[in-house]
């Protein structure tokens, strides 16, 4: 996206389109990635309730995956997961990149 000059933007930092957070890919901040295991997940949805960035994807009351464009890797989902071993494991992005 081409960044605009100071005469081309609304004043005071206002963003004229509502719901614009979807365009902001906070996933680029991530150090640890939550890796979800569909085999061990019991679909209790605790992670979905707790995620501060609405990044746990669900369909028909079941977890289907994680939105890595917006997940910033805070680890709350993994912390809250009641399964042992946890159905969401936090892994270093740098390790994943090496694999």
């Amino acid at each position, binding site marked *: 996206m081409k*960044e*605009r*000059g*100071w005469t081309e*933007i*609304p*004043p*005071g*930092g*206002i*963003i*004229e*389109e*509502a719901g*614009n957070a979807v365009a902001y890919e906070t996933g680029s901040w991530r150090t640890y990635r939550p890796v979800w295991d569909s085999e061990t997940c019991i679909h209790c949805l605790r992670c979905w309730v707790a995620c501060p960035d609405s990044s746990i994807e669900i369909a028909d009351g079941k977890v289907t995956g994680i939105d890595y464009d917006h997940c910033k890797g805070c680890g709350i989902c993994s912390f809250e997961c009641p399964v042992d071993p946890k159905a969401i494991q936090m892994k270093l992005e740098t390790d994943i990149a090496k694999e």
Partner: protein
Amino acid sequence: MRVARRLILTGNDATAEAMRQIAPDVVTCFPITPQTELMHKFAEHVADGDVDTELVLVESEHSAMSAAVGAAAAGARAMTATAANGLALMWEIVYIAASYRLPIVMPVVNRALSGPINIHCDHSDTMGCRDTGWIQLYSENAQEAYDNTIQALRIAEHPDVLLPVMVTFDGFILSHTAEILEGLEDAEVKDWIGTYEAKYSILNTDDPVTMGPLDLQDYYFEHKRQQVEGMRHAPAVIRDIGRAYGELSGRSYDLFEAYRLEDAEFAVVALGSTCGTTKVVVDELREQGTKAGLLKIRSFRPFPEAEIAEALGNAKAIGVLDRSISFGAPGGPVHKEIKAALYGTGREIGIVNYIYGLGGRDMSVNDIKTAFAGLEKVAREGTPDDNIRFLGLRGEGGV
């Protein structure tokens, strides 16, 4: 011919009267000496049903400015008032109000900042926030505090400006002293300020916008440049509105007032209530044949440097009065601006800075005479080494 509405009011009550006539949608209120009586009076107007403003009583000045920001973001006309440490406590949000381009108007009753604790007048409070992005209008007397408050609404809300405005007047000296002044009729004020339609409202669900988002390396710089542009438009707007106000009231306003300055050899630059005393001294010196003059700054932000440099053109020596200190800097805030304004004009004018009146220390006719007397040597010999002087100070270095 219009019949003047004569009033006898203190600076605080005059400003509360202006606020009653403006009838802002929202006023946020927290008391601090010497602003307290202003809000007492305004709260009385609200309680008596003389104005239908939503008065929001908050628990601190930080909240007073925050609530004003919230109200203005919703598109309301929002005002608050404060002084000294109260202004210091709202500091964070003072910047935010300007950055979000919210046209809040705030009377500030000038008082010394602690410590040691002091409730009397100096300009350390508003001078300290001269770089917050607010327009600052200084008042010489209660009449000007009243007039500036009304004009501030239209300046702040002007689409080319869209910046908050501080209207300042000296604590106790003006805030608690009764003066005869002329008020406008309620209907005149109402018509003259008109209604305010904010371009954006945080409560407009039909056309929602985001206010206050994170603004990092990519756009923050551009938004600051926009604020600069609003400030650059402000001088012409302040002047136009000052003229229009003159047509309404018979009292025109400019960015500064040049009092007997045109052929003045000895010029004093000041702002606030001391200008009234200085005019008395200028008149007296003129009678004795000394070419004395005063440049009274009304708009300190924006600072009209080219016009001020021109107005000081004939001076052989300039004494700049500062009612605050800029610690570690070469002189007080007004002094530095005047020196900067004259830089590059090719004129070598001797300039001395008189720091005076801190913590409410009296500034008498004799003190101002001392300041003028000091200028004669400066005119002969140029800017001296001891060009930062402390007028009215006891002990070494005081004059």
